[in-house]
């Protein structure tokens, strides 16, 4: 019944999928050997190349309207591995590529190898970790095998954790250790689930699994364990405790990537699991449960963000809240009544929320980094007058904030509008209430900061370090990307439905 989506042969252009994963890996290996200032050069060559690969895959999938598949080594699943790019993966690929490229440009000054001196620690480590995060994310969105995805997930963890403590302060080391322990717990639970699935169905290939899977206890246990593990990695309330110190402690470009992309990697995997690997398993109780946690995250994260005195911590708590919205995708796109759940506006809304949050949050962390660099601190109380000193950055923060709040014409607005529409269509008004309250709270913490920034200072602002215009522009560009997403038409996107299995929502045995 799903012959069209079987990963049975490499399709035209499939080798781009390999390149998307392998190019950064090659960069890592080269940087380790050559070291020193070559690391930055290698990264700066690979950034546009990788972006081009991502755009090429996007174009192929968009034009063809069908997933791109690559059979690694020519070995068919279930014995071998397949890579598969469908609508949501290419959208993720491009988002990741844009954010990573921008981060690379933004980080050039902070992580520059001083010329003529011995190799410095932070630059080498940063550039390699940036490439590693990219490779891992690409592997995560392209993988079609649950064990391959486990390795990708671990790659992501090992790239993200050292980034947290790159500055080497004791509190960042503690944050990194706590993050690592949470992440390890998460991946081990995920692995436990894959063991059960392999034992029951003899394959970990997602497409094959979706045809073999039956709603029986072992599938339920596996799904619960894997989801719980991935939730810990995604930092969904109440497993969020590791996130604020980790994301706030990393250097600004690191925080941008961690908050914009890394937590989305494991979220992407949860969606893959429920919508692609186990489409017959989702029922409304599980969906409502996940969304309830999401609602908790929206309310808790926003309220705690309002009480923060440090800008980076505020942004980190806002990430917790914004992640919560993503989980509304489960009840809204998985409506039991809908015969074609993918047509749901909720599906599109959820994904646009993910992409616009990625751009807006990366821009916001960069803006916060610039402000902290220029003032020497990130206490919100001391922000008065910064609007005069760093007008572009203040503007960046403002429009990124508008997207988080969901004010038109931003991507955040489109996302929340579609999600609201979906709540009406599905008759689940309670999520709408949470979203409206969350939007108001977001407005509260954004204006709390903006108000401080824009009010005139009693004493002239003391600037520790000047900030170059080019970095401000990079942050602004990302914020504008979030605004550009607001031009997406307010209806279900065809792209995001490419490659979705046309399986009825309830798969009886």
């Amino acid at each position, binding site marked *: 019944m799903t012959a069209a989506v079987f990963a049975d042969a*490499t399709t035209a252009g499939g*080798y781009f999928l*390999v390149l998307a*994963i*392998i190019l950064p*890996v*090659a960069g*890592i*290996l080269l940087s*380790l*050997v050559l*070291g020193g200032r070559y690391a930055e050069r290698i990264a700066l060559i690979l950034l546009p190349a990788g972006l081009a690969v991502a755009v090429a895959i996007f174009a192929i999938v968009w034009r063809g309207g069908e997933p791109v598949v*690559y*059979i*690694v*080594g*020519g*070995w068919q699943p*279930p*014995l*071998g*591995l397949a890579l598969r790019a469908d609508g949501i993966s290419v959208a993720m690929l491009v988002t990741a590529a844009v954010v990573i490229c921008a981060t690379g440009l933004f980080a050039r000054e902070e992580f520059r190898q001083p010329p003529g001196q*011995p*190799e*410095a*620690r*932070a630059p080498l*480590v940063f550039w*390699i*970790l940036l490439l*590693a995060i990219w*490779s891992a994310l690409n*592997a995560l969105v392209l993988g079609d095998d649950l*064990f*391959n995805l486990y*390795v*990708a997930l*671990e*790659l992501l963890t*090992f*790239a993200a*954790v*050292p980034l947290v*403590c*790159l500055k*080497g302060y004791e509190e960042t*080391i503690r944050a990194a250790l706590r993050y690592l322990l949470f992440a390890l717990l998460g991946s081990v639970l995920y692995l*436990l689930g894959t063991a*059960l699935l392999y*034992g*029951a*169905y*003899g*394959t970990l290939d997602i497409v094959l699994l979706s045809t073999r899977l039956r709603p029986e*206890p*072992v599938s339920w*246990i596996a799904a619960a*364990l894997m989801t719980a593990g991935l939730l810990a990695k995604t930092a969904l309330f109440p497993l969020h405790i590791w996130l604020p110190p980790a994301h706030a402690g990393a250097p600004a470009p690191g925080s941008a990537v961690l908050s914009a992309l890394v937590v989305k990697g494991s979220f992407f995997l949860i969606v893959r699991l429920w919508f692609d690997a186990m489409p017959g398993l989702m029922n409304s109780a599980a969906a409502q449960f996940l969304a309830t946690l999401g609602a908790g995250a929206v309310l808790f994260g926003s309220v705690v963000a309002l009480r923060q005195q440090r800008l980076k911590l505020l942004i980190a708590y806002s990430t917790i809240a914004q992640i919560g919205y993503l989980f509304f995708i489960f009840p809204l796109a998985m409506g039991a009544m809908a015969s074609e759940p993918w047509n749901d506006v909720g599906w599109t809304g959820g994904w646009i929320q993910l992409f616009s949050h990625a751009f807006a949050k990366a821009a916001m962390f960069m803006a916060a980094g610039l402000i902290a660099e220029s003032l020497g601190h990130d206490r919100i109380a001391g922000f008065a007058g910064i609007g005069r000193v760093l007008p572009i950055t203040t503007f960046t923060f403002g429009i990124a904030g508008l997207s988080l709040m969901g004010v038109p014409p931003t991507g955040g607005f489109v996302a929340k509008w579609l999600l609201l529409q979906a709540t009406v269509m599905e008759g689940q008004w309670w999520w709408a209430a949470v979203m409206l309250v969350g939007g108001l709270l977001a407005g509260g913490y954004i204006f709390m900061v903006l108000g401080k920034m824009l009010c005139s200072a009693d004493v002239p602002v003391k600037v520790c370090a000047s900030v170059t215009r080019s970095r401000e522009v990079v942050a602004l560009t990302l914020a504008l990307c979030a605004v550009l997403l607001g031009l997406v038409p307010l209806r279900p996107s065809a792209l995001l439905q490419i490659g979705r299995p046309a399986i009825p929502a309830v798969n009886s045995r």
Partner: protein
Amino acid sequence: MTVALAFDIGLGILLLAVAGWAVAACSTYAATIAFIVYGLLLAIAWVRLFAVDVALTEAAIGSGVTGMLLLSAAARLRVIEPAAVAAGTPLRIAVGISCALISVALAAAILFPPDVVFTLAPAAMAHLPESGLGNPVAGVLFVYRSLDTLLEKAVLLLALLGVWSLAPDRFWGGIPGLQVYRQRNAILIFFAQILPPLGIMVGIYMTWVGADHPGGAFQGGAVLAVMWILVMIAGLRDVPPIGQRWMRLLVVVGPVVFLAIGLAGFALAGAFLGYPAGYAKPFIIVIEVTLQISIAVTLGLLAAGPPERIQPQ
């Protein structure tokens, strides 16, 4: 009840008892030692499950090198044993109940296997002659699912970079802070002189037979790594600074060769990580040999820790 089953039951009980001790022991040091014992017992259990490759990996890496790491950490942290506050009893009971539930669910999944048992063993065996290998596990690692193995090498490298990144800026490129024996200990030096030639031979042998019999680059690499660590701990050789080009080269040579052969597969076999028909085995052996070197150096450096000084002691 057969003798074998009696042995298995005894082994199982022992495993659980030692594991329980490792969780519940008061002193961290005792718990670590329990963990090492547990790892060795586990290796026997793997042999009983007909997974000799895994048994070797578990004994060498899972119990051996991991145990060494944990033990040296426990020794360093011994001074601050009672610092941490234990979790409250209600929490422990709640967590205990949920863990027990998970265990029961897993046990149920094991006790009631599916009606149809899926297995990839026939498929793996059917295509094995094409690769020229005799060990099906090596076939999975280096032929059918080599992308997993390649990415896992990247994970290992990143872990090393992560460990190095913890060094203070001024010591970057310096010498890892492996705990070297302060006074030269004649017995240890004797040991470090006599064992490595043997160990190196065993390590290389393990990799070499890995193509057709249990063994392989991971296990062999781990044995080499341990020999290197022994020599360094005894003070016979200095721990090399991490900034040196040759060391970096050794660390990446395996993955680089792996990746290069994988890319060559585009041209030679029409697929990434494919091998040209008839030449699979030589390629795989080249990959395994270089990987073994990289794994040995990486494991040794991981155990040595982040750089802590510039000048040799």
